[in-house]
């Protein structure tokens, strides 16, 4: 039975750029613009694939090796996250904490690359990103904890099975988990209130900063990695914190619908919300952690299971 699940996970490689495309198009429509089509990310990837790369002065092994390594990390992430409650047997296991580690590795490599080029904007952006990640990872681990409470394990398969059905929604804990994971989605995908993905002003960049120095195929790989990050986080969110039940096919349908709903929600938030001051972000994530801790406390205290 792992065949179809593996196919869907691998399909993620192809479908990943669809998500940012869908969010951009929805946002454009909400803002009364026609906007680019949903397939625009594919076109940019194709265009970048055929342009030549750039060698910034003093760039070394880390600079040239970063894009493939980041893309590899995200591919591993794809392999780890089960899609519809089932995972292909890629042998990497399905542990949530390993996923956190893999994303941290990608962040490390990108920050090191920005040090290699010595580009001020890239360094400023990675400094901000790492600062936010201090609080973001704490929140992510809290969200994982809440999802692990019913499953008694950090294995994503067990967690998504425990999250199946309606019973889980009766207690307040899961709702706290939803709020926490919503914030996690905003941090990890680098969406509006925390980071503006389509900004061109280098001083305000957080997620795109380290990408400044790249061009051609390197930039294509990094852009794909950004899209894959969307896919990993949204699929994970849908799997853990959106209601689903029934067999594999039903769950798969519900999962894809869930991802669509999340894209819509992200687009809505992006249109409504202006960008937050960077130094305020930790306070917001702190509130998320407090909500998650309260949720965990209620579960452990046995409230409303």
């Amino acid at each position, binding site marked *: 039975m792992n065949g179809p699940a593996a196919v869907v996970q691998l399909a993620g490689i192809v479908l990943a750029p669809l998500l940012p495309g869908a969010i951009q198009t929805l946002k454009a429509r909400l803002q009364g613009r026609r906007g680019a089509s949903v397939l625009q990310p594919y076109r940019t990837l194709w265009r970048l694939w055929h342009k*030549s*790369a*750039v*060698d*910034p*002065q003093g760039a*070394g*092994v880390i600079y040239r090796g970063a894009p*493939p*390594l980041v893309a*590899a990390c995200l*591919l*591993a992430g794809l392999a780890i996250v089960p899609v519809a409650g089932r995972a292909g047997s890629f*042998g*990497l*296991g*399905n*542990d949530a*904490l390993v996923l*956190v*580690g*893999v994303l*941290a*590795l990608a962040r*490390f490599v990108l920050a*090191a690359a*920005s*040090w*290699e*080029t*010595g*580009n*001020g904007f890239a*360094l400023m952006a*990675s*400094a901000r990103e*790492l*600062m936010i990640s*201090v609080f973001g*990872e*704490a*929140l*992510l*681990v*809290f969200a994982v*904890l809440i999802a*692990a*409470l019913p499953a008694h*394990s*950090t*294995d994503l398969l067990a967690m998504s099975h425990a999250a199946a059905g309606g019973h889980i929604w009766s207690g307040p804990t899961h709702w706290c988990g939803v709020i926490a994971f919503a914030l996690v989605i905003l941090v990890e995908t680098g969406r509006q209130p925390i980071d503006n993905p389509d900004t061109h002003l*280098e001083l305000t960049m957080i997620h795109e900063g380290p990408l400044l*120095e790249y061009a*051609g*195929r390197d930039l294509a*790989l990094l852009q794909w990695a950004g899209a894959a990050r969307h896919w990993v986080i949204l699929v994970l969110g849908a799997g853990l914190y959106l209601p689903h039940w029934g067999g594999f096919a039903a769950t798969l349908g519900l999962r894809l619908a869930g991802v669509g709903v999340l894209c819509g929600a992200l687009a809505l938030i992006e249109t409504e919300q202006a960008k937050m001051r960077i130094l305020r972000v*930790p306070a917001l994530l702190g509130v998320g*952690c407090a909500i998650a*801790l309260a949720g965990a406390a209620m579960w*452990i205290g046995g409230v409303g299971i």
Partner: protein
Amino acid sequence: MERAAGSLDLDHLGGLLRRMPWTGGAFLVGCMAIAGLPPLNGFASEWLVLQSLLHVALHQPLGIALAGAAALAGLAATAALALLCFVKVVGLVLLGQPRRAECAAAVDPPPGMLVGMTLLALMCIALGLVPGLVLPTLAGLAPGASGATLARHAGMVVPGTGSYLPLPLALALAALTAALLGVRGRRRSAPAPSWACGQPVVAALSWSSAGFTKPLRLVLEAVFRPRREIEVVRGGGMVQSVTYTGHVPSLLDASVYEPTVRAGLRAASAARRLQSGNVRTYAGYLLGLVIGLLVLVYTGVLG
């Protein structure tokens, strides 16, 4: 590095990876291991600690469980902090342009000095890849180990919780990176200065450690409580010079150790008045002792 670059001040190094590949490589592996990045041993041990904290949160009574949950989040935040710190160290020391002439001329030390570092780096990688072999023996050492030894195999599979298989993960990452490198093919690339809004890149623009950690220090100002003195010298109606000195005082010393030591010494000097030098006072102590003991006997406290 001190031998080659002459100084260990982070802001006076740079670009050592290309010039000192062996030392730089070992240093990089070390930093990644400490920062707790997946294929290395740092992440393996961190993963185990996170799992144990999770179990504390799951199975202990409310108070301890909440503490476990808070500790879990705390550890994750610390891991991210470590990541920030060691990216900064790697960036300042190994990558970028050399900040001083000695760094530019740095070369790897003779093999004798390299063996130690490389051996340790290899052990970090080895332990990172197959922690499962060591885990059962270590678990057995724990006091009151219930003897239910874990099964011994390459990855770490803790029954009843997650599993972390570092070897396949590392192989997958390596294979995928190689594949993508192959797919990317020969890089047609043109040299270009790194982007600084069109300005020529000069040494003054290179970042220092203070800059990289500024966002964090701003955010955690309440905890660090940094002390900064800004001195502006004005002369002839013009600002002649502005000197900025700031440092982060270590909290524990300032708020715990120094007051205790001062209080201890003050109490000691007060107690020393006991030896006042006057023989009549000393005889008074003897009288007080005898009468005190007699009172204790009289009141029945003693015996």
